[in-house]
């Protein structure tokens, strides 16, 4: 492990508890600096290593990639669906993020959009081993279609299949957009969409 | 106590049954079964005569014959399998392209 990495681990323990450290007994209403606002504004000075990575990506793609937040060990990028394959290929080949840990979608009915985020990690680069880069994209709710990343990351095969049936995103180019976890006779709307309600709740 | 002629008669009956099967049946496996029946009838005759004259050679020949029959069945069934794989059929009349 490189020297840089040895320093990294201590940061998550140090940074998040800022609000509570100020007022431990009443955590219910922390009017303190960050809590009420969006996370990306919480930290005006993101850690250097993560910032460097984000800058590298930013430099390559310019405005096509939007950095949502940079936190210790975590980076979130937002791209347009048409760019995602290109960005992912760049991340895999140049940045050394060689596998996807997880991929899942979130339904935002207010924006009429579905967000799909891939959490990418690295086995190859030791200094990136503790980082997770979240590559997100958004698509319309009504006609949810996204290009598949299966040709870039083999590891998203089942995650995408799961997302297809849980959120109804059709992945163009994925070999099997079909039933995976749900019962064979499932005939309702995709269950992880917000307008699907569990009975009695 | 049974005598030599009784064994020979049983053997004759078996031979006749075997030949009937060879003539009538067109199924390759059944034809192999018929051949086995005929071979057994022959063995029976051999052993019966060997017992009757007392002479060990009849039994020796019977043993040889049994071994040969086993080898023949192995090859025969190998052929049946190949033919089945080619024609999806074990009826010998259907093995048309075997001619020439």
């Amino acid at each position, binding site marked *: 492990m490189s020297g840089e990495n040895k320093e990294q681990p201590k940061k998550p323990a140090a940074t998040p508890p800022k609000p509570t450290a100020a007022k431990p007994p009443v955590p219910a209403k922390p009017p303190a600096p960050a809590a009420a606002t969006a996370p990306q504004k919480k930290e005006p000075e993101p850690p250097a290593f993560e910032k460097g990575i984000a800058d590298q990506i930013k430099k390559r793609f310019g405005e096509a990639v939007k950095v949502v937040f940079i936190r210790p060990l975590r980076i979130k990028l937002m791209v347009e669906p048409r760019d995602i394959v290109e960005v992912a290929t760049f991340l895999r080949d140049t940045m050394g993020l060689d596998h996807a840990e997880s991929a899942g979608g979130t339904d935002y009915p207010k924006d009429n959009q579905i967000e799909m985020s891939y959490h990418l990690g690295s086995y190859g680069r030791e200094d990136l081993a503790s980082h997770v880069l979240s590559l997100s994209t958004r698509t319309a709710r009504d006609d949810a279609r996204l290009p598949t990343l299966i040709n870039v990351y083999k590891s998203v095969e089942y995650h995408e299949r799961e997302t297809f049936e849980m959120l109804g995103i059709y992945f163009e180019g994925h070999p099997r957009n079909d039933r995976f976890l749900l019962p064979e006779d499932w005939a309702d709307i995709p269950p992880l969409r917000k307008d699907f309600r569990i009975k009695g709740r | *106590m*049974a*005598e*030599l*002629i*009784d*064994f*020979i*008669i*049983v053997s*004759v*009956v*078996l*031979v*006749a*049954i*075997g*030949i*009937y*099967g060879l003539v*009538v049946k067109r*199924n390759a*496996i*059944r034809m*192999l*079964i*018929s051949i*086995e*029946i005929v071979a*057994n009838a022959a063995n*029976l005759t051999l*052993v*019966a005569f*060997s*017992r009757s004259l*007392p*002479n*060990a050679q009849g*039994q020796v020949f*019977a*043993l*040889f014959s*049994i*071994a040969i*029959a*086993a*080898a023949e*069945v*192995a*090859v025969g*069934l*190998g*052929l*049946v*399998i*190949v033919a*089945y794989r080619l024609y*999806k059929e*074990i*009826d010998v009349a259907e093995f048309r392209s075997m001619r020439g």
Partner: protein
Amino acid sequence: MADPVFIGVAVLTVGSAIIALETRELIYGAIALAISMLGVAGFFLLLDAPFVAMFQIAVYVGAVAVLIIFTVMLVRTQALFSVKEDKKRKGAGIALMLIIMASLGALLLASGLNGQFGNFNDSEAIDFREIGEQMLTYYAPTLIIMALTLAGSVIAALALARREEVTSIDGEGQQNGRTD
């Protein structure tokens, strides 16, 4: 002819030989063949040839019947049940069978074999040690040729039944290796 054991074995042998040919399902035919072979082995025991009888059981029941049953299982049932035989042919076959039986039987009865050698109890049974002796002395070349024939046929069967794509030892190969 009054020996009930003999009659029983004879009925078993001949009856199951007929069943082996005439039953509709080939697998029962194979089983009936095995039983018929057992009957023949019983004859051998009656003829005081226990060595040949045991050999017969070991080879025919342990190998030949297994082989045939195995082949029957490999072949799809659809091909087994298609009975294609015409009545005329069957009639002719039965006639042929009866003619063979009648003529050979008449020949045998007329040949003077009947009663000539008398009862088996008169003569000593052959010890199987004598068979071994003869096999290893006078018939030794035959034995070697036999062994080569067996080996050749096993290899031939292996070569016939193997598939090109599969490189390792397959089911049929093991099967045919049994036949010695």
